[in-house]
């Protein structure tokens, strides 16, 4: 809390129309997180059946590598690592936005319907192997079809919650309802389906980074970059919303529009993540809470949340690939690491 008190007397930085308050602790933590994320990203590329040293990895990424390294890295390992990075950032930022808008730390984009909608559609397509379902999977692929379902559900939640603007509390309760319906459908489909299909569906439901090629990653990457650009622009008007609608309006923020744009970005970011890795659970819930405690902010910091998400996902993928005796999807490992880490932070904060 001392960092907070100090930051109020520290001078601002101004570059043309853009101004910041200089908060050394938050900036330092964010930069450190970025550095660690980059390091882990390169490590995760280097480690595998054909180990490559860290310097070679960095050289190759920037285009000065040996031909052999270049093939292994650019064609085989980079897509997977990039998928982890993009999905982690997208989920972390999406979670930070959701928790800020709802002003409730228990909310996450899972509540916005994307995850459960995508899950229900995927399970439906896997378990009901009929004419139309098979045709859909064959023509667009399971992940794309599921993403369509997820985005459809997300937009449904968004429009159902719209009543003269978006209200955080209403959004969350509507989201919980729609999610409950989708999960009930999933449960029912799983309970009535053939057990072999169930195993396949269950594996998809956890989210995975296995066998990710450039095709899957490229779309998610560009979508995430574009959305992050929008989020960055709107973020300056987003901060005052933490003080309540009245104060925000007094500061000249069109709070209805800002909130609507940010939430739409959160929905689409979660969608981009689902398109690349399936519905990886819990990252979006845990990352903002961890980032808040690391950066000592009263509200989820956007950039740090994204980086923590990426760190969590890449780290979990590394553990899943190298340290575990059985092959498990990254979603399982993410939750197994993220849950206890959150508890650890809470206990440590309590003890202080």
């Amino acid at each position: 809390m001392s960092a907070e008190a100090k930051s109020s007397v520290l001078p601002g930085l101004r570059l043309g129309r853009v101004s910041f308050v200089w908060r050394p602790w938050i900036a330092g933590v964010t930069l450190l997180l970025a550095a660690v994320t980059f390091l882990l990203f390169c490590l995760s590329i280097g480690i595998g059946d054909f180990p490559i040293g860290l310097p070679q990895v960095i050289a190759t990424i920037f285009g000065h590598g040996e031909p052999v390294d270049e093939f292994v890295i650019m064609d085989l390992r980079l897509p997977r690592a990039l998928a982890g990075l993009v999905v982690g950032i997208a989920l972390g930022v999406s979670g930070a936005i959701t928790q800020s808008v709802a002003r409730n730390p228990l909310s996450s984009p899972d509540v916005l319907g994307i995850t459960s909608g995508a899950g229900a559609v995927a399970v439906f397509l896997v378990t009901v192997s009929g004419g139309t379902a098979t045709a859909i999977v064959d023509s667009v692929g399971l992940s794309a079809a599921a993403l369509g379902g997820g985005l459809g559900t997300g937009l449904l939640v968004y429009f159902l919650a719209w009543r003269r603007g978006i209200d955080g509390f209403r959004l969350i309760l509507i989201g919980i309802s729609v999610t409950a319906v989708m999960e009930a459908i999933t449960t029912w489909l799983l309970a009535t389906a053939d057990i072999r299909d169930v195993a396949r569906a269950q594996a998809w439901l956890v989210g995975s980074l296995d066998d990710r090629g450039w095709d899957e990653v490229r779309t998610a990457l560009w979508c995430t970059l574009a959305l992050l650009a929008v989020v960055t622009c709107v973020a300056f008007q987003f901060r005052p919303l933490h003080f309540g609608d009245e104060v925000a309006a007094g500061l000249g923020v069109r709070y209805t529009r800002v909130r609507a744009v940010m939430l739409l970005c959160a929905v689409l970011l979660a969608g981009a993540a689902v398109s690349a890795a399936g519905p990886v659970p819990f990252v979006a819930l845990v990352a903002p809470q961890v980032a808040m405690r690391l950066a000592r902010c009263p509200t989820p910091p956007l950039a740090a949340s994204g980086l923590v998400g990426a760190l969590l996902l890449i780290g979990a993928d590394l553990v899943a690939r190298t340290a575990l005796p059985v092959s498990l999807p990254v979603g399982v490992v993410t939750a197994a690491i993220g849950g206890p880490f959150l508890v650890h932070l809470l206990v440590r904060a309590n003890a202080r």
Partner: protein
Amino acid sequence: MGLAVLVVILVVAGAVSLAVGARALSPAEVWHGLFAAPESDQRLTEIRLIVRTVRVPRTVLAVVAGIALGVGGALIQGYTRNPIADTGLLGVNAGASFAVVSAITLFGLTNPFQYVWFAFLGAAVAGVVVFGLSSLGRGAGNPLTLALAGQGVAVFLAAMTTAIALTDQAALNALRFWNAGSVAGVGFGVIWPVTAFVAVGLVLALITLPAVNLLNLGEDVARGLGVNIALSRTVGIVAITLLAGAATAACGPIAFLGLMVAHVARYLTGPDYRWLVPYAGLLGAIVLLVCDIVGRLVVRPGELDAGVVVALLGAPFFAALVWLGKFKNA
């Protein structure tokens, strides 16, 4: 007054629940099945068997579990002061699922009757661990810490459950039925002990209600008015764990019910927990019973599990109430 209306609705629903099913029975037949002495008539003996061993147990269980989840849902929202808190928040559901899956993998259990005690043990241990973690250190029992610690533990247990289920097909097979949440197929051998746990939980819950009211005025105010915060919170969490744990052990995880009826009850009674909690309990019993009845009717001769129906029917209804602006951010 409102409570009396709810009790009448519950009794009617209970009567309907005895009559409706794969084989529809007339009121006279139900009456006969319940109270008549055994006879030699083949048809009447069959009816007696259906009513006594199938319909009565599932009706009783739906009422007991519904009350437990409704009261538990209202209490957890009161103690965490978070309107989206659900009974699953203490890690109870995740703990129960994890215990069931581990028991199947380790001991090769095949009969759902054997799961129940593992499920209850898992739920109780998870609840105690969450509460213990959130009570360490100076910020003991901070509602936000409790909620987040619960999420953390639940997340971890769910991951372990999935990991086991993905590597062991027998466990996955059991898990998918367990997850649906059903009040059917459990005998009185399970129902009596579950009812006993729920009863203890209810008594503890009722004792703490005045304190919950004061806690919702803020901790400082509550302390100033003479509430022993640590004690009342401990009793409350124990009550929630008993209620949710027992209900989950017998039925499997039934999500959304506690959250939904807590909000409806708050809308009907206002913020006084001494009224809100009894309303939530009765509403929970009514909703679960009605959903079980509907589940028996829609896909005849098969059945839809009560937990699935609760979400499919309850959620749209709840969403409509939300949209109409009936609920306040408590």
